[in-house]
């Protein structure tokens, strides 16, 4: 095994020898550099592998042959091996990446690069404080040299700011070191453990520590770093982010043993503040590199927290820090490199990336990885971190982390969405020579591999987690196939999967029901996809991800699996929504709200761990004393997904702007995940109180208001899909209300309605998709009279709306009937009446939906329309059959559903007497109602047909028109603003309070971020002052105002 010191010697020899090179030999020099970095990588890599496999023991290298503390020693253990390998590998790939730049840059740059790497290596390995200082300085000067790789005025002035900052920092560090020496008598970290105990020694420790913390670019004393990120060449930015920052953080890790225990949490807090606020400020960044800079700094802050709290995290420390470290390393480097390829800081210009599908995929993977979504390591690391913090009652910390995470998601996905939708610019053609692609590809692969190891390490259930993940991966791999093949494959795999898991969940009706909804829904909603031509790249992997994410929710082994499924589903559906033509903003909203919900849930899991230990929340079986907060957090999270009023504003946009045939999946199927969660907490937690209020009571009101609000908003929609989407809000309000009644009947209603809503909403959305597929418009007032050309779709919509409206004899009535009984039993008359009112309001939009589209005047450009394709109709009619069966025999569904509800839920259950459903209040016989109606209907219809058999069939303008005739179909079709009178009367109810609120939140936070951002004045002097101020404030906080 080659001594690690030769990393340095090889590098230095190379650096010195490069000075001999001549201009004409530049290619050779680059090759030499490449070989040198490769050699450095090999040395550190061999140590890494050796230590991992156990064939080599960790070692100390004594320079000059003296034992420490008499001489400087370098250490090589697992930690150092990992970091030096990262540094050197990164250096190697950077040389490859910068091949074209280096070929024209002159020998000095090559030297600087290699010295930069050496500096980082030694910073990682050395155990001597002063040596650390020297190599930090080397790195600083080398960094300044790298900064001016592009010699424009921006990078030069940023470099100068950096020099000022690093001078101040090194000054502080040096004072600290020299006094540390003066107090303890040596310079070796390993011999300093008593330093902070000596009077005055702790000040020295503080100075050293604060200098390193400042070096790690903590908010808000990091303006210089941001300016560097913004102005440096992307490759250098990536170096700063991917290797410099981890190296400095490692120094902090090394220093931690000499830092007094009592400071750890404060440093951690400062790191967390950096995380939160950097992400917050990044939300206002338009410049990509600066944004990435903010993000890097934020990640650094988070890692600082973990590092400084390493003793607190105990066994989980390595898991957490590796999760953050590796993800940040691979992903951030990859993003910066991509930036170099796109060669623009303008988000709009990044659209060119779409011309390179593989790179674009990796771009997405990097973004997702940084955002902390599964299956990337950050996700697991964040989970573990929160759980540990919750164990230690660190609630404020959790809040900061979650806040920061949501800001992070906000700007990352804003960026991603922009790139997804930016116009492809013809001028700005992307140049991707192989040497630029190779590093990105490698890091992308490495990121995926790391994720694989993390997932593997966590030992998930094979059937319910690993297999789905595998299938999703396969769909990523076969994305080049034609759409119909993939569609077929996905349907087949879902079917087979269903067949496989059926024996596993057989007997658990609840899982059966939800699994059925998710699987059958997934399959049926995929069927219309057969009309798609081409490859439909990027749809199927995410469709699979969404559906399998949902499936993971059904039978989770633990909270993590549930949460993972939840996030996976959110991510998949986000992409599905984003694929819509105008979906950029709605998708962004969707992502933000999903993330908000997910983080609430994460906090809830943390609290749950604190209250109830490591049990799956669905298996709590009853009371959780004092769990009101947990309950509320869960409820909020699930109600976000179920779009309760106030939290609903993402829904209409997201559902309507998604691709037409993907909408049924993301709406009809996906929304039930919220119901699943709510049902679970409702059954698992039991009644809970918050500040003395019964939460169910509040939820009931929320549900009622949601029901009215959703339906009211639906009335005024002119957009077909938005209308149905708002109707989903209404239906969810209904379900939330039913759930919060917390009675047997209430839960039964919720479940029944969940299934029913799934059926009719999917049906309606599919039908709408069929109509939109033919008419190419979503505005209902642009349609009309389509019953002639699309009779089958009309029938589906008719049945759908009769069901939705809850009219007998169709299945919807069962829900209404039970609802009344439950309301009266519960005694929630007012809320019940509100919900009832919402049910009638539903008539208005239902009428609008069916009449505007299918009835009335046929428009000229729809004269030659055909019926929707068969593949659209097929699933719809399967649903129609289901509704019909349920209408006649509701007990087929209701009886099994009733078995799901645990016995401890209070209230009276539904009794069955043959076909007669009974409660103590009322009764209802679906079969007999149906028979009566059918007979009656048939008789009257026969009578009419007999009488009117010779009626003259007339055309659309053959109407009485006050002795005139209509002029155009458009002027005759009353559809636009159909309920103007209603608006005049009750329009005030629709004041968009929620939208205003959230817009206000967003505007205010943007304004605050803008204000805060101006802290970074761009003046190097001010930055220097920030550094001193930061150190001073940190000192005051640590010392408590006294001299240490």
């Amino acid at each position: 095994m080659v001594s690690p010191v030769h990393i340095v010697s090889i590098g230095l020899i190379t650096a010195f020898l490069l000075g001999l090179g001549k201009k004409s030999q530049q290619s050779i020099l680059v090759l030499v550099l490449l070989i040198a970095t490769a050699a450095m990588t090999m040395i550190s890599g061999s140590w890494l592998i050796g230590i991992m496999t156990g064939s080599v023991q960790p070692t100390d290298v004594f320079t000059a042959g003296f034992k420490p503390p008499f001489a400087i020693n370098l250490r090589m253990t697992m930690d150092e091996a990992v970091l030096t390998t990262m540094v050197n590998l990164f250096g190697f790939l950077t040389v490859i990446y910068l091949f074209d730049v280096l070929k024209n840059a002159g020998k000095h740059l090559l030297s600087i690069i290699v010295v930069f790497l050496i500096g980082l290596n030694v910073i990682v390995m050395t155990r001597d404080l002063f040596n650390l200082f020297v190599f930090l300085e080397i790195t600083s000067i080398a960094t300044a040299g790298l900064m001016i790789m592009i010699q424009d005025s921006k990078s030069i002035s940023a470099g100068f700011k950096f020099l000022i900052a690093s001078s101040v920092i090194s000054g502080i560090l040096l004072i600290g070191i020299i006094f540390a020496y003066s107090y303890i008598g040596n310079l070796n970290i390993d011999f300093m453990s008593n330093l902070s105990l000596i009077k005055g020694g702790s000040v020295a420790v503080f100075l050293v520590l604060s200098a390193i913390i400042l070096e790690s670019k903590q908010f808000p004393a990091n303006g210089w770093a941001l300016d560097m990120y913004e102005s440096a060449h992307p490759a250098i930015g990536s170096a700063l982010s991917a290797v410099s920052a981890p190296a400095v953080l490692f120094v902090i890790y090394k220093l931690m043993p000499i830092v007094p225990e009592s400071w750890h949490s404060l440093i951690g807090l400062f790191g967390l503040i950096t995380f939160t606020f950097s992400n917050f400020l990044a939300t206002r960044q338009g410049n990509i590199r600066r944004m990435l800079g903010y993000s890097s700094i934020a990640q650094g802050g988070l890692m600082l927290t973990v590092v400084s709290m390493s003793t607190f995290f105990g066994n989980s420390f390595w898991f957490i820090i590796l999760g953050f470290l590796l993800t940040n390393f691979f992903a951030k480097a990859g993003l910066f490199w991509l930036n170099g390829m796109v060669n623009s800081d303008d988000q709009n210009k990044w659209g060119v990336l779409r011309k390179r599908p593989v790179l674009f995929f990796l771009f997405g993977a990097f973004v997702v990885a940084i955002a902390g979504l599964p299956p990337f390591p950050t996700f697991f690391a964040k989970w573990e971190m929160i759980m540990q913090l919750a164990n230690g009652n660190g609630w404020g910390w959790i809040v900061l982390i979650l806040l920061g995470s949501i800001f992070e998601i906000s700007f990352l996905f804003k960026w991603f969405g922009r790139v997804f939708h930016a116009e492809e610019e013809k001028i700005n053609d992307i140049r991707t020579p192989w040497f630029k692609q190779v590093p990105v590809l490698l890091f992308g692969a490495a990121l995926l591999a790391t994720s694989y190891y993390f997932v593997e390490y966590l030992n998930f259930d094979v059937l319910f987690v690993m297999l789905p993940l595998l299938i999703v991966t396969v769909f990523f791999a076969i994305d080049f196939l034609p759409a119909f093949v993939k569609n077929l494959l996905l349907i087949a795999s879902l079917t087979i999967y269903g067949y496989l898991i059926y024996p596993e969940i057989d007997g658990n009706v609840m899982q059966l029901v939800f699994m059925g909804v998710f699987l059958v829904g997934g399959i049926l909603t995929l069927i219309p996809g057969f009309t798609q031509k081409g490859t439909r790249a990027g749809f199927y992997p995410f469709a699979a991800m969404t559906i399998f994410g949902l499936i993971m929710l059904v039978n989770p082994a633990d909270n993590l699996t549930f949460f993972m499924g939840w996030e996976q589903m959110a991510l998949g559906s986000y992409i599905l929504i984003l694929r819509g033509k105008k979906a950029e903003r709605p998708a962004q909203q969707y992502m933000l709200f999903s993330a908000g919900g997910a983080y609430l849930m994460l906090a809830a899991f943390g609290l749950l761990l604190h209250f109830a230990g490591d049990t799956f929340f669905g298996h709590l079986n009853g009371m959780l004393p004092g769990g009101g907060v947990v309950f509320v957090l869960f409820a909020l999270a699930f109600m976000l997904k179920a779009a309760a009023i106030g939290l609903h504003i993402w829904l209409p946009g997201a559902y309507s702007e998604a691709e037409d045939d993907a909408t049924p999946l993301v709406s009809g199927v996906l929304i039930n995940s919220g119901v699943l969660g709510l049902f679970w907490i409702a059954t698992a937690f039991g009644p809970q109180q918050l500040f003395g209020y019964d939460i169910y009571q509040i939820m009931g009101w929320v549900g009622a208001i949601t029901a009215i609000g959703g339906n009211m908003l639906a009335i005024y929609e002119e957009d077909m899909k938005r209308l149905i989407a708002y109707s989903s809000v209404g239906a969810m309000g209904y379900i939330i209300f039913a759930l919060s009644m917390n009675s047997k009947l209430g839960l039964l209603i919720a479940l029944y309605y969940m299934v029913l809503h799934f059926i009719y909403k999917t049906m309606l959305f599919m039908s709408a998709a069929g109509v939109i597929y033919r008419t190419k418009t979503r505005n209902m007032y642009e349609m009309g009279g389509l019953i002639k050309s699309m009779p089958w779709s009309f029938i589906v919509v008719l049945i759908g709306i009769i069901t939705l409206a809850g009219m007998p004899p169709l299945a919807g009535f069962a829900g209404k009937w039970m609802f009344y009984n439950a309301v009266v039993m519960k005694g929630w008359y007012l809320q019940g009446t509100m919900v009832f009112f919402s049910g009638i309001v539903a008539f208005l939009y239902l009428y609008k939906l069916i009449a505007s589209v299918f009835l009335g005047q046929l428009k000229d450009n729809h004269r030659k329309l055909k019926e929707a394709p068969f593949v659209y109709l097929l699933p719809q009619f399967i649903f129609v059959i289901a509704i019909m069966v349920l209408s006649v025999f509701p007990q087929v569904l209701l009886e099994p559903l009733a078995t799901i509800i645990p016995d401890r839920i209070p209230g009276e259950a539904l009794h069955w007497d043959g076909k007669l459903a009974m409660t103590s209040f009322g009764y209802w016989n679906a079969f007999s109602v149906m028979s009566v109606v059918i007979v009656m209907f048939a008789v009257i219809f026969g009578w009419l047909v007999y009488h009117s058999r010779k009626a003259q069939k007339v055309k659309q303008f053959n109407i009485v028109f006050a002795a005139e005739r209509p002029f155009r179909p458009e002027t005759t079709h009353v559809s636009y603003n159909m309920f103007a009178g209603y608006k005049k009367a009750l329009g005030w109810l629709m004041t968009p309070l929620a939208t205003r609120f959230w817009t206000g939140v967003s505007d205010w936070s943007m304004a605050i971020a803008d204000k805060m951002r101006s802290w970074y004045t761009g003046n190097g002097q001010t930055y220097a002052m920030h550094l001193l101020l930061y150190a001073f404030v940190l000192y005051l906080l640590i010392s408590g105002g006294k001299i240490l």
Partner: protein
Amino acid sequence: MYKNMFIIVLLAGLGILLGSFLLTHHANKALPELPAYYADKTASEVGAANVVTAVIVTYRGFDTLGEVTILFVAASLIAMFLKTSKAPKDRHPRPSSVILSTAQKLLFPLIVLFGVYVFTNGHLTPGGGFQGGAVIATGFLLLLMANPQAEFKHGLLNFIESISGTSYVIIGILGAILGLGFLDNRFMSLGELGTLFSAGAIPVIYSLIGLKVGAELSNILHHLNEVQNEA
């Protein structure tokens, strides 16, 4: 104005922070273990009369390598930074006075010689590679002041710099291979304390450092001068 007041307050705070050292610091009565070890064992272990030199070149040799690297990287940076434009030189400075040019011709070899003396005797007397190198560079500075348009042989300076740097590292490696560790000076004979050829590789190393530093500093000066010429 307020900003300055604020800065004064801030610095006052930092002053208090630093002042805490004054309050807590007690003048050493005796050397702590580490310097005591150096003082006592240098002669026998390293063989250098100048304990500071022994610390610099051997005990903390790795630091010194870093120092050299810093100068190197700074010189590289300056060279990279200042060499980019190839504007024609159209600066016509006033010719230097007779006294200066004559003195320069007289002094330049002496200064270089003195520099060489300083670094070769670094292990015996106060001084060493850096100091010697700096002295040599002053010679070059004098040269430049006397004749601002003087042309250096870049190639030669670079060559000296590279070779001396490389040799330094190689000696370090030799220390690792032949001696006990990287930069160990003891793979060469320690010789007799206080003579020129003593203290193992220290004189060699210091000479190399001296050459390197001299070349680097001269290079820096030259580059700065060239930029002036560009103007």
